[in-house]
């Protein structure tokens, strides 16, 4: 296929403090491993284990009642220490005491078998060895139903959200597994596999070249799979494409080659409260306090916020939580902003803002020492128009939230709310501090429930 070039005009260039270096350290998993089913959105978990049970790497721990019993597997071998329930008997935590490295043999798919397998056969293998959980189906961004097959798969080599693991660090280490994974996905999607890479960046290895289909220019979230899809699609049917993160392709390839459920992931420890922002190899299920409890990792532990993920799309975590299957980063931020008198009257040489209302807008850009403060109370939309300018898929966020407030979901649909990629830029810039992206997630959730009914 000929290369498609997509260029997104400079919507928002942010220089944030706490960018992780390319050094990689290994965080030993210890004996305390946890899985948190209630945190996985759109999944209705049913427990398959009880306290005291012995599990191996790859043993099923719980399954999704809402998706034909799709199983979620263990990344550690040992015994179930306890199971903690939360509000309304939701399964808050499955705690495992890790004491061995036994692995459950799972179905494999080697190179010769790929070309001989149909998409259905491949799908069944991926559902049986636990890798199906890493797919996401657009537009609702959910794990695909077991009977769905991808009309197309979009993969982005680089995630530009501050801060995510860099392909230059993880891909060279996972080369064989990644290429094997790509071959599987190519067969699964019946050759509708689209790989987006960032213009000007060197490829981790040359074998990727024949797979590349989209060349992207632009800041976050230009390389995100659904943004690429938006700028590529020419018909409604293409809206149901799938995606999977680059690193998860490696995990998929590795599991299909070895028959052992992939347990390790390379994450980043990042943020303005991280003493040594860097890449780290962790076992999925490691406790977050393995990092935050270490005084050499964290600045001002009293005013700390932990996010699993990047600053825009990351989810709030407690240090008592555990890394789940889909966490690619641990972001450490100061929670509150420093105390300041009459902040709105400041000249603002050091205040970095997207708006030109502070003097810093006319001076060279400095690094932003991010905090998790809102910097303002929630107000009604004042139609400043900034949210329209930063949206990567040409939506009008202010209009969508007003329609949602008025209860008009049909009109939201017509205005394109399902194209929303959840990048969070509109929410970042809003001076009225409206939680726009949270509302869009809610709208999409409501609309998704209607499709299930």
């Amino acid at each position: 296929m000929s290369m498609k070039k997509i260029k997104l005009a400079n919507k928002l260039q942010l220089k944030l403090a706490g960018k992780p270096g390319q050094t990689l350290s290994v965080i030993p998993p210890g004996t305390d491993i946890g899985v948190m089913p209630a945190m996985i959105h759109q999944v209705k978990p049913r427990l398959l284990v009880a306290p005291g049970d012995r599990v191996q790497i790859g043993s099923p721990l719980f399954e999704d009642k809402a998706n034909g019993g799709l199983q979620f597997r263990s990344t550690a071998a040992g015994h179930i220490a306890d199971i903690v329930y939360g509000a309304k008997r939701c399964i808050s935590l499955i705690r495992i005491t890790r004491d061995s490295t036994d692995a459950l043999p799972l179905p494999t798919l080697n190179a010769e078998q790929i070309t001989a397998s149909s998409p259905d056969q491949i799908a069944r293998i991926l559902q049986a060895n636990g890798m199906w959980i890493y797919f996401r189906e657009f537009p609702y961004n959910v794990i695909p139903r077991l009977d769905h097959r991808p009309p197309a798969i979009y993969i982005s080599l680089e995630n530009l959200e501050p801060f995510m693991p860099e392909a230059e660090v993880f891909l060279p280490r996972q080369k064989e597994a990644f290429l094997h994974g790509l071959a599987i996905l190519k067969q699964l999607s019946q050759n509708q596999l689209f790989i987006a890479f960032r213009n000007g960046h060197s490829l981790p290895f040359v074998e990727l070249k024949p797979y590349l289909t989209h060349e992207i220019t632009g800041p976050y979230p230009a390389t995100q799979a659904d943004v690429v899809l938006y700028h590529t699609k020419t018909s409604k049917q293409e809206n149901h494409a799938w995606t999977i993160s680059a690193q998860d392709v490696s995990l998929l390839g590795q599991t299909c080659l070895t028959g052992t459920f992939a347990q390790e992931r390379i994450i980043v420890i990042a943020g303005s409260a991280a003493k040594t922002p860097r890449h780290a190899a962790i076992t999925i299920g490691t406790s977050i306090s393995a990092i935050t409890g270490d005084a050499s990792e964290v600045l001002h532990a009293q005013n700390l916020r932990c996010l699993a993920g990047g600053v825009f799309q990351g989810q709030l975590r407690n240090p008592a939580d555990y890394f789940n299957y889909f966490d690619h980063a641990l972001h450490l931020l100061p929670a509150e902003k420093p105390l300041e008198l009459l902040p709105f009257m400041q000249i603002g040489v050091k205040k970095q803002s997207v708006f030109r209302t502070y003097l810093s807008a006319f001076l060279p850009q400095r690094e932003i020492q991010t905090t998790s403060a809102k910097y303002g109370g929630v107000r009604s939309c004042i139609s400043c128009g900034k949210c329209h300018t930063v949206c990567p898929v040409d939506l009008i966020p202010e209009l969508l939230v007003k329609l949602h407030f008025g209860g008009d979901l049909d009109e939201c649909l017509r205005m394109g709310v399902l194209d929303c990629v959840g990048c969070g830029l509109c929410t970042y810039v809003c001076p009225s501090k409206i939680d726009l992206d949270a509302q869009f997630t809610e709208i999409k959730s409501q609309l998704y429930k209607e499709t299930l009914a």
Partner: protein
Amino acid sequence: MKALLKSWFDRTEHHFAPAARAGAFYPLFEAIKSFAFGDMSLAERGAKIRDVIDTKRIMILVDIALMPAVVFGIYNAGFQAHLLAGETPALSASFISGLWIFLPIFLVTALVGGFWEVFFAIIRKHEVNEGFFVTMLLFPLTLPPTIPLWQVALGITFGVVIGKEIFGGSGRNFLNPALAGRAFLFFGYPASFSGGVYTSFLALKDHTVQAVSSATPLMLLSAHPASMHAGILADAKISLSQLFWGLYPGSLGETAIWAILIGAVILIVTGVASWQIMASCLVGGILTSLLFITNGGVTDTPAIIQLILVQLCAGGFAFGLVFMTTDPVSGPMLNASKWGYGFLIGFIAIMIRFMNPAYPEGMMLAILLLNAFAPLIDQVVLQFKIRKRIPNDA
């Protein structure tokens, strides 16, 4: 020092907790605390980092942009008062008299309007909104210096309550509240806006009244064809230069075009106001003036240009263009709509001036009319935009 202040707030906060005695007054407590320190809450849902901008910053910039017009307006009000009393006005005397004229109007606006803002915040249980920072400075500037204070109170009440609060408060009004208040006074108490009201009698005391100019430049020009305009202005000894520098009787903030231009530059450079609306309104005003002036029998190009500039500098056109048309809440939300919106305001304002003898000034009416039509313009533009999207209605 700020730690002391913060600890005072922290100690007093429990008095305003929901169940406490003064719990209903929490919005007032919060307004004062966030005025001092900004909002201290964290981002809980959605993106966990946010831009440092807040609505307070945006509103305060509009106030800063208004300052040149305010300062000159104060000086001018005092100056005209002393002139009327037959004295040669000294700088400080003019300022002091001007403050005596302006401050009561401003304070009544701020206190009465502020009361309504806090009242609605309390009964609706939400934080006091900052939109009033702008309205309280804008409203006095549209009024004549001799307006009775009780009318100021009524006007701002109408503007804030009927113009804004009944629709849900800041961000939900479809009319500009300051202008709605002024329109109420204009139609309810027209005598306050006609005749010799544009000069204050404050400085008079023991002096006798000299000749009172009983009409603004626009009133003089109204109902006369354009061919007579130059002559009328010459007879009244009003020059274009005077209209630009603003040292003549008029509403408190509208006369000094140079001061308004400084405000425009501040608003455009900081990106707070839409330059598209300002530019299209200017173009609309110029083209419409051109139309009426050439139709009114003026053929000489320098004279045409002169009269166009008179139209732009006289009355509330410049002030309205910079500060009223650009109010984002009452205007259209889409950028493409702004061009049509601004142009139509300029067109209708000038058209009313030339065609309707009952309204020498058409700017306020044009803005209010287009405020009502802005959603329609948006709807039309929106239909074109949506047509370009590939549907995603899974």
